[in-house]
């Protein structure tokens, strides 16, 4: 198995609302895949189709070489899922829920369970109805990480966690990755995706707008360059490859396509460089670029 998830042209509508409109998603075995998109763009709908809870109106979806709708129960033996909005049985304790989910998934690593409970500082004796949102999320995370599923599907798993717990979550994902597990991580937190993911898929209004390794996607965006020069730059503003040029005395700030960085730096050096910073494009820039174009279309 080379691909853990392969979805092509997924279409799904609820009444008149079009939730998915030809969405593509490919997740390779062993990778951590970031799944990004604004609210209501279709991330959770896609995940529910992959879990066999919803049936796609059109397109093709494969999960672990099986059909997620027809072979749902069988395929679920090999995956663990953490919902975005975790709701637990109010009368069961956190420990009981972890054990139940673990048993249903076909086993739980006891040592790992104990270790995770301690690291996440979760009291397993409390009834689920007394847990906060973050603690309910921890219950689902401990159950997923302590299982031996080969694929983890995590739908905005850190939305209720504090920064310390989020750092711990990132550490756990790194450990799971080292153990060879595949993860699909839907998220809003770009720094988290940047830190963890090998490849990302960005969707908007039910369609895939970008997909690929982070380094490749970065190539599509521009680097930010600011410099202090030996003398006021002249003529630079008219250079075709430079964008958003701002000049203030000897200082200059500009954006440049990554492929044209060489030429831009050569120009700056010709004038004489006293100080220079060059920031690679962040995922945020990528994300905002698509997000803003969506706003403009509205």
């Amino acid at each position, binding site marked *: 198995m080379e691909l853990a998830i392969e979805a092509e042209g997924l279409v799904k509508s609820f009444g008149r609302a079009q939730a998915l409109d030809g969405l593509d998603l490919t997740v390779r075995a062993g990778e951590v895949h970031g799944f990004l998109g604004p609210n209501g763009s279709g991330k959770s709908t896609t995940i529910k189709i992959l879990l066999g809870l919803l049936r796609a109106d059109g397109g093709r979806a494969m999960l672990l070489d099986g059909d997620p709708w027809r072979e749902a129960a069988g395929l*679920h033996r090999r995956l663990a899922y953490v919902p975005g909005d975790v*709701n637990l049985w109010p009368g069961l304790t956190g420990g009981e829920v972890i054990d*139940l989910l673990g*048993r249903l998934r076909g086993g739980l690593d006891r040592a790992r369970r104990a270790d995770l409970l301690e690291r996440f500082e979760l009291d397993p004796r*409390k009834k689920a*109805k*007394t847990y906060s949102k973050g603690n309910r999320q921890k219950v689902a995370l401990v159950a997923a990480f302590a299982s031996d599923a080969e694929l983890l599907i995590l739908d905005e798993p850190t939305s209720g966690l504090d920064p310390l717990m989020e750092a711990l979550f990132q550490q756990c994902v790194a450990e799971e990755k080292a153990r060879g597990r595949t993860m699909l991580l839907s998220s809003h937190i770009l720094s988290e995706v940047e830190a963890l993911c090998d490849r990302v898929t960005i969707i908007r209004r039910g369609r895939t707008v970008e997909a690929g390794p982070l380094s490749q996607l970065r190539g599509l965006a521009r680097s930010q360059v600011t410099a202090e020069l030996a003398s006021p730059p002249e003529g630079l503003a008219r250079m075709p490859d430079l964008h958003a040029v701002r000049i203030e005395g000897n200082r200059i700030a500009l954006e440049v396509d990554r492929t044209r960085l060489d030429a831009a730096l050569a120009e700056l050096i010709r004038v004489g460089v006293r100080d220079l910073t060059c920031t690679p494009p962040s995922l945020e820039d990528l994300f905002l670029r698509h997000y803003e174009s969506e706003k403009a279309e509205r």
Partner: protein
Amino acid sequence: MNGTWTLTKLALQRERFIVPLWLLLLVALTAGQVKRYATGIPDIAAFAREMAANQALTAFAGEIPSATLAGMAVWKNADAIYTILGLIMILTVVRHSRGEEESGRAELVGAGVVGRLAPLTAALAVTCGSAVLAGLLTAAAMTATGADVAGSLAFGAAITAAGLVFAGMGALAAQLTQSARTAIGVAALGLGLGYVLRFVADGGGLAALKWLSPQGWSHLVRPYGDDNVAVLLISLAFTAATLAPAYRLLVRRDLGHGLIPERPGPTASDRLRSPMSLAWRLQRGLLGGWIAGYAIAGLVLGALATSIEEVAQQGAAVEEFFHRYTASPEATMTDAYLWLIALSLGYVSALYPLLALLRLRNEEISGRAELLLSTPVSRARWVAGHLLFALAGSVLILTAAGLTMGLVAGAPGKVLAGALVQVPATWVLAGAGVLAFGLLPRAAAAISWAAFLFVNLFGEVLGPILGIDYWIARYAVPYPNLPMVVSGEPFTATAILIMTGVTAVLVAAGLAAVRRRALS
């Protein structure tokens, strides 16, 4: 008290369909009964004498307040109205107080410019307001049928008073417990106790007990007879006595907490290992409550059977009673009574499987089903766990009532058989519940309640109001088709086999629909 009016409007908006619906039903009940008696019974005084001689009917309906058309209509329906209204009051007040806290919505509201007392006050305003409306509308409807105005107002006041008492009880229970479901259970216990005390008072000739029962206070008004409205001062005093501690607790306690704190539970679990064991955890409370309730009902109702005297004179009403509930001329009054009780227990038991199956919908809406079904549990196995409780649970609760009632009444075998023969009819309702959940999940709760009310009201209540013959019910409702094994009919399997077959078809169709549909 800041924000009370805004919250009251919000609660009214949320109740805008439910309150008018039950108001209409409750008001139509007695007024419709007057019409039915006016056309169907030529000599109302003779009918009243005949009914008064029947100990069992006195236990169920209470003493006859007056031997007039309106008085007999009150006698037939008042007890049911007081208790049903009480249940509605409890559910409404808890939904708008503790229910809001449990969901976390009260937190959102409490962070606004809203006084600490406002949410409970708004809940009580809506609940008590609708109780007053129920009384006024009933009085108006009764007057419209030509009944005496003073008597109609007294009846309306008795209805409102019963509503207020249980609204107060619900409000107090909502302060004690952390979960809305437990609060409803605690208050419903008070409601049940009131019912039993009044029942025993009239059935066992212990008239003093009536003064201890909230339903009893309303009975003591005796509309169209004594019109003794002064008794209702007890109801008002009792309401005040529940509301005062409710408000005192409300001011002192923390939002979201009750008097009874949550205890820590087990760290791990060996028993929860399958969807079936999870279903057991989720269903055992409901099932246990029903078994206990049915066992107690069997005890009380069975005890009454021993005090029934055989009626010598054969009036028209007694003849009709025998025609409906016996199948052989040798059957005695006690046999007819025991079959009527077995049948009534059957009718009411239809609610259990429907409630048990609605838990599935609850699991789905809350997103817990999503979590469960992301594991290797198939939808069929998930539904099967709860369905097992719906079906086997129906058998258990009817067995419980059949055993206690049979032992007390001194006819264990016959009565148990009479209770168990109800099972397939109750299963048909379970089948309808599965099908509704599969095909029309969003309407499943409405369909389940509608099916339960239809089955219970069609033959006995709606039929007479709409002028439909009692025996037409045979074609629409399963229960009248069951062999009357208690009152002279030999056991035949035909009806039972047909009903079991219908259940199997409904369940299979429902399961197929669940497997095919999208889960929300």
